[in-house]
């Protein structure tokens, strides 16, 4: 049980976790508040102290330099043969953001794409992500005009203070790219053209960049490599003119991802692939109950086995170190550790969801947002109000690569090889856990075999690796078994919603009240995209014992299901087609309408309707992370009652697309990830521990149940949105809505495949 039932009415304060990345709540004031406070108090000081955009360049050159090459600006290193290495302050979870970021730099610089390479920035303060700092600073608002010229400088400093290198919340392209990388490309252009002008004794206005080379009408030309060192003599201003959209040449092109070739040869190196002299593999068993500890463990059954070097215990786990991971695992499984499960010994997800339902139906909920007098309207309608209750279960991330990393204590320093969504934060966490200074910790990047939020701020695997490695001189390669990974995740929260509405004479809702549990991030996830005069959204609070983590699209993953299922139900209550019903409610929103219409058209919605709906289609639309996505799913109920989704049509408006092929790939990816969750995903806690252990009881969509997915990209010209997450939120409701078309049964509890479905007659 949780203390959810005790949720009491309180002020409408915003919880302290407001980041675009799904950062878990931390104690004390939120980072955004700190930053805003910092700006108010110290921002002017930072500028006054003469912080220049190149104050960190010496440090960056030292960290990212290569003999004979020039680190021109923080994001770009130039070799004498004109090879351009774009250094980007993000992890790549598999979405290809390194390539997209490089496209942005290359475009602004008119570089020759064939010479562009990518490299992750070192996990060092000098490479903290200024663009992200700026976004935090701004919050939901634009920068106040008088600040705009300085914002880039100030926020870079703030990013340092915040140690930001996070990858999550689909921020890499919109923020790092469109704010930071364009500026980096423009700065490089500024420096290189001036270097050439000086060398040739001509006005800088006469130096152009063509075909990736610096050129002058006199016929003189030079490669970037030739002018790079001389370019360092010029300091670009904080604000530079940037290209307008019409003149992009690399942005918007389906460039091949630069990270892919080593991923087809097996050369890409993930942390489990690291090999160091004397390295030992660690297999771990940690307490199955969140917050529990290791009471005792007789280590003798593991000792003396072939290959076993050492058995170590930590306050919460036991681990075996061996020369081969299989030997380590066999040995750790021979043990019979005694756990003290602690306060969460009876954590039970069925009870949690029941409590969430009760709290959503109860009084004293906190206000999320509201407009008009929805509460009054709903109360006045009495039992004429339409009321529906939906639930969603806990979910694991279950990336293909189980979590783990390599840790080695040597000569008073700690070296870590691993993949982290925010490597800079990982460095600081490692220092804290190891009781070292940050300067004594080095993070060596490895590839990331998927993450979906798991490797952001929930770095239990890093702490465990450090706790184990400090007990030996050898480098330790900690690999979670699938079973440990699945039972020690930080889960997408379970959720419940009670939604009520009254419809007007024309069938449109005149009031909606939405009450749900629980609220994490981002703050706009519970918003209805529709024109509603009276809407009130409330949520119940209460700490849940289940470990929470950001899961692809975070709260949008449940709110997309709740809101888009409910709107669909209202359409049917109103006796209207769910597509035209949404159309009517979106008539003031040209961007959403265009996306909705495109998806409907791709699926042949109108023809299908005219033909009496022989194909069973469901529609759902969601704006998340700045991108509007509408998905139409087709379902087939097989004779055995099983649910199949043969087709999904996706229309998406990210404002501007950097790499159309990469964007389409992320829509496919988001749909499939969301479809696995919609159909099968369910993590259950029973007696304090997670029941599901491997892919045989935590099912995945595979090739045979993967739909054909058609993607259409609409570039409205709005501010650039994300790609990695927005494909996920609409799919669950699209499928559930199609099931209703197929069977007349409304599935309100995820996962959908669990429901007994009757084949259509």
């Amino acid at each position, binding site marked *: 049980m949780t203390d959810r039932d005790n949720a009491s009415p309180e002020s409408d304060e915003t919880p302290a976790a407001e980041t675009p990345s799904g950062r878990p709540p931390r104690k004390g004031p939120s980072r955004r508040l700190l930053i805003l406070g910092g700006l108010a108090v110290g921002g002017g000081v930072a500028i006054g102290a003469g912080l220049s955009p190149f104050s960190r360049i010496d440090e960056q050159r030292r960290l990212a330099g290569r003999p004979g090459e020039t680190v021109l600006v923080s994001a770009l290193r130039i070799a004498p043969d004109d090879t351009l290495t774009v250094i980007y302050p993000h992890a790549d979870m598999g979405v290809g953001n390194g390539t997209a970021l490089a496209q942005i730099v290359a475009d602004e610089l008119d570089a020759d794409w064939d010479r562009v390479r990518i490299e992750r920035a070192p996990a060092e303060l000098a490479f903290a992500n200024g663009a992200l700092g700026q976004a935090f600073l701004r919050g939901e608002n634009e920068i106040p005009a008088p600040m705009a010229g300085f914002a880039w400088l100030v926020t870079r400093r703030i990013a340092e203070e915040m140690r930001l290198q996070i990858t999550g919340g689909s921020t890499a392209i919109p923020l790092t790219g469109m704010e930071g990388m364009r500026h980096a490309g423009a700065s490089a252009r500024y420096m290189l053209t001036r270097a050439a002008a000086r060398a040739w004794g001509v006005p800088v206005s006469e130096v152009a960049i063509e075909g990736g080379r610096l050129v002058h009408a006199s016929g003189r030309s030079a490669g970037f490599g030739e002018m790079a060192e001389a370019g360092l003599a010029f300091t670009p201003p904080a604000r530079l003119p940037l290209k307008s959209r019409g003149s992009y040449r690399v942005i918007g092109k389906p460039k091949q991802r630069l990270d892919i070739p080593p991923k087809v040869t097996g050369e890409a190196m*993930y942390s489990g692939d690291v090999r160091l002299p004397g390295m030992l593999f660690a297999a771990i068993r940690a307490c199955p109950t969140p917050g529990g500890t290791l009471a005792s463990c007789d280590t003798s059954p593991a000792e003396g086995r072939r290959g076993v070097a050492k058995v170590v215990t930590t306050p919460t786990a036991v681990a075996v170190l061996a020369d081969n991971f299989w030997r380590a695992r066999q040995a750790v499984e021979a043990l019979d550790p005694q756990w003290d499960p602690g306060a969460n010994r009876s954590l039970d997800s069925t009870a949690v969801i029941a409590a969430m339902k009760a709290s959503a139906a109860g009084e004293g909920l906190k206000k999320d947002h509201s407009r008009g007098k929805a509460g009054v309207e709903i109360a006045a309608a009495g039992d004429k109000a339409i009321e529906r209750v939906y639930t969603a279960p806990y979910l694991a991330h279950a990336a293909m690569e189980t979590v783990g990393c390599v840790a080695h204590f040597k000569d008073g320093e700690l070296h870590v090889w691993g993949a982290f969504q925010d490597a800079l934060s990982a460095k600081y966490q490692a220092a804290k856990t190891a009781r070292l200074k940050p300067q004594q910790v080095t993070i060596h990047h490895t590839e990331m*075999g998927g993450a979906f939020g798991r490797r952001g701020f929930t770095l239990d695997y890093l702490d465990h690796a450090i706790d184990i490695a400090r007990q030996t001189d050898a480098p330790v390669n900690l690999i979670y078994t699938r079973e440990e990974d699945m039972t020690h995740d930080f889960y997408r929260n379970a959720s419940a919603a009670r939604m009520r509405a009254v419809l007007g004479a024309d069938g449109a809702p005149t009031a909606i009240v939405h009450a749900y549990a629980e609220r994490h991030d981002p703050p706009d996830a519970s918003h209805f995209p529709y024109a509603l005069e009276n809407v009130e959204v409330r949520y119940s609070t209460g700490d849940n014992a289940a470990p929470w983590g950001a899961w692809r699209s975070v709260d949008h993953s449940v709110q997309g299901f709740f809101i888009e299922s409910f709107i669909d139900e209202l359409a049917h209550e109103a006796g209207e087609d769910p597509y035209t019903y949404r159309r009517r409610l979106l008539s003031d929103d040209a961007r959403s309408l265009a996306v909705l219409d495109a998806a409907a058209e791709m699926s042949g919605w109108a023809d299908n309707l005219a033909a009496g709906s022989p194909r069973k289609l469901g529609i759902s639309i969601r704006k998340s992370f700045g991108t509007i996505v509408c998905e139409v799913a087709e379902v087939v109920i097989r004779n055995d009652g099983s649910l199949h989704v043969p087709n999904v049509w996706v229309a998406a408006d990210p404002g501007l697309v950097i790499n159309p092929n990469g964007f389409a790939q992320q829509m496919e*990816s988001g749909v499939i990830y969301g479809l696995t969750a919609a159909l099968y995903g369910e993590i259950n806690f029973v007696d304090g521990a997670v029941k599901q252990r491997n892919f045989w009881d935590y099912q995945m969509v595979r*090739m045979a149940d993967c739909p054909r997915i058609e993607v259409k990209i609409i570039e409205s010209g709005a501010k650039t949105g994300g790609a990695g997450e927005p494909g996920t939120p609409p799919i669950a409701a699209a499928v559930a809505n199609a099931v209703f078309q197929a069977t007349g049964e409304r599935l309100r509890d995820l996962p959908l495949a669990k429901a007994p479905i009757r084949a259509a007659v």
Partner: protein
Amino acid sequence: MKLTINGAVHDVDVEPEMPLLWVIRDELNLTGTKYSCGVAACGACTVLVDGQPVRSCSFPVGGVSETAAITTIEGVAQGGALSRVQQAWIEHQTPQCGFCQSGQILAATALLNEIPQPTDEEIDARMSNICRCGSYPRIRAAIHAAAKA
């Protein structure tokens, strides 16, 4: 015991019940073959044994005959030239995080060896490896492209 992997003969001294995966990864340090589930449920560890796809995490090394030819991802490219499957994988921009792709490529290679022009149904039936990043549509397209190459 002797193992022939990618054409090279290796002498290994391990317990016969050790799964082939861990011999390949931790004894021979060929790390392109991945561990993900350990129970033959995902295919990340797929290698070819005499051309047949095998989930090496659940295949004891003692069961491999000394004459069997084992192919791992490191042995798919011949003399530095990518195989048609690998090329199709790049052309269709198939990998995302990449972690499942060694297994996918070997499963596809085995499929094409046996059925040079597979139908979608044959692909559905034979390509049962999990990809959490959702590269299935591109795997399908790449297999069809490789079949034509």
